[in-house]
């Protein structure tokens, strides 16, 4: 009788261990699934921090982080995958620039023709200040003294002479 009870207790313990083991495996799978669904430890903020530096590929000047087109959803997914794979934000930005061209960047690159976007405002400012200085200097400059010369004697005016002569005659 006691032997049978002992066997039953052992079997009960074994069942308990099996159930506990299965529960642990299930819990582990659940955790892995949740983490995988969230793209590892990558948060939306991390994805958007990179996405806001990029443009939507199909809309004009719409940042990637706020665009809801299917293309942008896919691009943000790719950013998430790359972050989960351990890539740094700059590596991801460089990947997008190399793959899709300069126009995907929110901030135009500083080299090449688009570099003019950065240089021209300063060039314009310097040129404007220079023109203003030149104009102001010219406006405030003292006029050079004008050398007065004796007016050349005018040729005798025959009408005046006649008038004077006639006036004298009248007197």
């Amino acid at each position: 009788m006691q032997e049978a009870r002992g066997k039953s207790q052992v079997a009960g313990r074994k069942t308990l261990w099996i159930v506990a083991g299965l529960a642990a495996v299930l819990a582990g799978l659940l955790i892995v699934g949740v983490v995988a669904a969230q793209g590892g430890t990558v948060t939306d903020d991390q994805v958007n921090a990179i996405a806001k530096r990029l443009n939507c590929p199909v809309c004009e000047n719409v940042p990637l982080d706020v665009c809801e087109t299917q293309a942008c959803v896919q691009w943000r997914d790719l950013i998430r995958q790359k972050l989960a794979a351990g890539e740094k934000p700059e590596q991801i930005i460089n990947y997008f620039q190399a793959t899709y061209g300069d126009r995907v960047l929110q901030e135009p690159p500083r080299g090449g023709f688009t570099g003019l976007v950065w240089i021209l405002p300063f060039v314009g400012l310097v040129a404007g200040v220079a023109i203003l200085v030149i104009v102001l200097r010219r406006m405030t400059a003292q006029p050079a003294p004008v050398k007065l010369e004796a007016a050349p004697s005018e040729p005798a005016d025959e009408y005046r002479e006649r008038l004077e002569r006639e006036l004298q005659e009248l007197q």
Partner: protein
Amino acid sequence: MSEAALPSTKKTGRSIWRVIALLAVAGLVMALALQLRARNATQPTSGAAPDFTLKVYSGYDGGLGKPEIRLADLRRQVVFVNFWASWCVPCRDEQPALEQVWRQYRSKGVVFVGVDYVDTEPAALKYLAEFGVSYPNGPDLGTKISQKYRIQGVPESFLIDRQGNIVLFKIAPISEAELIAELDKALAK
């Protein structure tokens, strides 16, 4: 140096600066005009098709056995270039017809080339597998090809004859019947 020479040197210096400033302004205006012209240009609908090199996705060389496809190397064949993307809904509508026609014409001196526009590789590969696409396909790296063809969206297609000239431009999904008719016309030339 004589005194009389001084003002003359000053004048020459000023003239040089004026010429430089004028040239700089002219250059800038010309660059902006060229940019504007390029921006307003539309798709080529005739004449020589712009050459390009497409690095194909792994497993999507269409049996050509090359990791890259150069349009110029396909001269003497009729080439159908299709710009598409996995996120493009109308592309999905025309895709089965494209694959069908490609299988029908691949042995008749016709090459199909799929240019994947601003797409992500995982989504693109999923799309290609979903439709069982077997003709050459690759990403438009740096959007260089789409810029050459000045596409405004996807899908857009170009048919190029054996001499390398564009004979058809289609800005919407192309139907199987239309594609077959155009291919037959190009092959008969």
